[in-house]
C-alpha cells in the first residue's frame, strides 16, 4: 500500500515560516558576523514590522486539517505578540549593552518564542497548542537565564523552568483525560464531542478541564498559579521581563480563549464562577501585594498579575463581547506596560540599575520628560481616563456587567482603586519627593521610539479608541 503525502497549503502558515527563517538567519548572522548586534536588531525589527503589516492583510484560512487556523482572532493575537517582539527588541539594544549580555542568540530565541506564540494563537488542536507552548516556554527559559553571571537571572530561569515543567505536566494530564473522554485532540472536535456524548456534567471531564485551565492560568500568571511571576519578572533581564509580561501572556490568553470558547462553551455554567474567583483572586493578589514592593520591577510584576485578572474578566462571561474586550485589553496593556518598562530601562545605567522605588524620587525635577511619560503610563495602568487603560478596563467591565457578573465587577473595581494606590506611589515619588541623586537620562533613539509609540498608543487609544475596538470586536473566533 502506497501512501501519498500531500503537502497542505502553506500560505496560511507563511508568516510563521518566515519568522522561523528569520530566526535561523539570526543564528547564522550571529555565527558569521559575530557581535554585530545592530544587524541582529535591525533584522528582527524588520521582520517584526513586516510581519505585522503582512498579518493585517492575511486572509482567514486553515491548513493542516484543522490543526492550524488563521482567523482574525488568531491574527489579532499574533499582532499583539509581534508588537511585543518589536518593542522589546527596540528596548533590548541598550539594555543588553548595559548588562553585558553578549549572546547573539538572544534575538533568535526571542523570535523562536514568538513563533511558538503564533502557533499557539492559531492552534486548532491541543497537540499543536502543547508544542507551541513548549516552544515558547523553552525559548523563554533560556532568555530568562541569559544573564549567566547574574545569580538572580539563574535563579529566575531555574524557577521558571521547574514550575513551567510542572504546570505543563498538569496541563498534559488534563489533555490526556479530555482526549480519553472525547477521543480527539481537535479543539472544535472536543466541543462537538461534549455535546454529542452529553458530558456536560461529567466530573471526570471537569477534572481534565480544570487541569487544562490550571495550566493556562499558570501561563497567564493567574492566582493561585501566579507564584512564579514576581520572582521571574524580577530576576529576568528587564527587556525580557517586558517581553514576557506582554507576548506570552497574550498568546496564552489566545489559547485560553479558544479552548474555553470553542472546546468548552457547553460547560460555561461550570467554569464561569471558577474563572470569576480566579480573576478576583488574581486582581487581589496582584494589586495588594504590589503595594508593599520596593522594587519597581517587582511592582510591575505584581501589577502584571493584577492585569491578568482584569483580562480574565472578559473571558469570564463567555460572550463574544467579553473576549473582544480581553483582546483589546491585552493590546492596550502591551503598549502601556512596554512604555513603563522602557522608562525602567532608560533609568538604568552601567553602574546602577535604579530598580528601586527610591531611585524615582524627584524624577520630575531631574528628568521631567521621563517622569511625565511614566506618569501617563502609570495612570493608564491604573485605568484613569483619558488614557487607553481606562478604555480597556471600561470595555472589560461592560462585557462582564452585560453578562450579569455584577459582584465580580464591583470587586474588580474596588481592587482597581487599590491598584491606583501603588501606581500613585510611584507618581508621588517622582513628583512629590526631593531627588535623591541627580542624574540625567540619556535617551537612545530606539528607546525613544518605544516610548513615543507607547505614549501615542496610550493617549491616542484613550481618546480615539474606535478603530481598535472595532477591530477587536470583529476579530472573534470563527468570524
Amino acid at each position, binding site marked *: 500500500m502506497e501512501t501519498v503525502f500531500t503537502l497542505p497549503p502553506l500560505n496560511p502558515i507563511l508568516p510563521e515560516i518566515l519568522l522561523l527563517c528569520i530566526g535561523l538567519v539570526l543564528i547564522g548572522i550571529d555565527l558569521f558576523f559575530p557581535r554585530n548586534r545592530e544587524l541582529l536588531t535591525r533584522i528582527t525589527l524588520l521582520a517584526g514590522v513586516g510581519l505585522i503589516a503582512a498579518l493585517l492583510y492575511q486572509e482567514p484560512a486553515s491548513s493542516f486539517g484543522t490543526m492550524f487556523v488563521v482567523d482574525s482572532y488568531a491574527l489579532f493575537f499574533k499582532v499583539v505578540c509581534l508588537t511585543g517582539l518589536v518593542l522589546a527588541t527596540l528596548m533590548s539594544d541598550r539594555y543588553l549593552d548595559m548588562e553585558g549580555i553578549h549572546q547573539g542568540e538572544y534575538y533568535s530565541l526571542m523570535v523562536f518564542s514568538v513563533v511558538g506564540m503564533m502557533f499557539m494563537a492559531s492552534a486548532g488542536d491541543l497537540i499543536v497548542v*502543547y508544542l507551541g507552548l513548549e516552544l515558547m516556554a523553552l525559548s523563554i527559559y533560556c532568555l530568562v537565564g541569559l544573564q549567566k553571571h547574574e545569580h538572580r537571572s*539563574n535563579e529566575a530561569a531555574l*524557577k521558571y523552568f*521547574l514550575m513551567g515543567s510542572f504546570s505543563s505536566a498538569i496541563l498534559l494530564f488534563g489533555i490526556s483525560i479530555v*482526549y480519553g473522554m472525547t477521543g*480527539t485532540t481537535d479543539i472544535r472536535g472536543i466541543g462537538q464531542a461534549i455535546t454529542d456524548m452529553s458530558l456536560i456534567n461529567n466530573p471526570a471531564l471537569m477534572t481534565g478541564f480544570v487541569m487544562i485551565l490550571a495550566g493556562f492560568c499558570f501561563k497567564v500568571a493567574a492566582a493561585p498559579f501566579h507564584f512564579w511571576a514576581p520572582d521571574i519578572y524580577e530576576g529576568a533581564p528587564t527587556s525580557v521581563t517586558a517581553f514576557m509580561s506582554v507576548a506570552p501572556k497574550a498568546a496564552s490568553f489566545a489559547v485560553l480563549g479558544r479552548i474555553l470558547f470553542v472546546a468548552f462553551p457547553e460547560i460555561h455554567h461550570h467554569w464561569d464562577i471558577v474563572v470569576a474567583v480566579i480573576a478576583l483572586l488574581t486582581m487581589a493578589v496582584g494589586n495588594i501585594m504590589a503595594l508593599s514592593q520596593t522594587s519597581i520591577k517587582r511592582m510591575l510584576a505584581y501589577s502584571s498579575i493584577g492585569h491578568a485578572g482584569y483580562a480574565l474578566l472578559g473571558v469570564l462571561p463567555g460572550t463574544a463581547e467579553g473576549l473582544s474586550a480581553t483582546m483589546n485589553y491585552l493590546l492596550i496593556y502591551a503598549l502601556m506596560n512596554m512604555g513603563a518598562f522602557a522608562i525602567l530601562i532608560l533609568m538604568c545605567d552601567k553602574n546602577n540599575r535604579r530598580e528601586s522605588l527610591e531611585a524615582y524620587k524627584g524624577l520630575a525635577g531631574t528628568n521631567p520628560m521621563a517622569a511625565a511619560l511614566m506618569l501617563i503610563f502609570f495612570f493608564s495602568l491604573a485605568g484613569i481616563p483619558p488614557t487607553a487603560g481606562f478604555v480597556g478596563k471600561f470595555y472589560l467591565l461592560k462585557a462582564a456587567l452585560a453578562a450579569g457578573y455584577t459582584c465580580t465587577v464591583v470587586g474588580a473595581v474596588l481592587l482597581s482603586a487599590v491598584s491606583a494606590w501603588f501606581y500613585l506611589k510611584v507618581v508621588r515619588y517622582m513628583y512629590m519627593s526631593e531627588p535623591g541623586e541627580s542624574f540625567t537620562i540619556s535617551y537612545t533613539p530606539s528607546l525613544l521610539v518605544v516610548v513615543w509609540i507607547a505614549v501615542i498608543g496610550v493617549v491616542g487609544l484613550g481618546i480615539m479608541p474606535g478603530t481598535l475596538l472595532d477591530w477587536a470586536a470583529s476579530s472573534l473566533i470563527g468570524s
Partner: protein
Amino acid sequence: MIPLSWYMTLSVLLFSIGVYGFLVRRNIIILFLCIELMLNAVNLNLVAMGHYLDSLDGHVLTLFVITVAAAEAAIGLGLVIVLFRNRRSVHVDTINELKG
C-alpha cells in the same frame, strides 16, 4: 483484556508520586526526574487511551511529549550547570534570593 481503568489508576498513582517527589525533594536533578515521572504517567494514560480509542493521536502526542521531555532535559540541565557554576549548589531551597 486489561481494563483501561487499571492503566489510568497506575497513571494517577505515578503522577501523584511525581508530584509528591517534586514537592519534597531538594535536589534539582531529582526534581527533573520527578517531572519525568509525571510525564510518563501522562504518556501511559495517552497510550492506553489511544489504544482503547483505536486512535493514534494519543500515541503521537506521547511521541512529542518524549521529544519535548528530551528538549526540556537539555535546557534544564543547562540551567543547572549555570547555576552550579555560580553557586556550587543544586539545592532547590537555596535558590530563594528572589522573594517577597
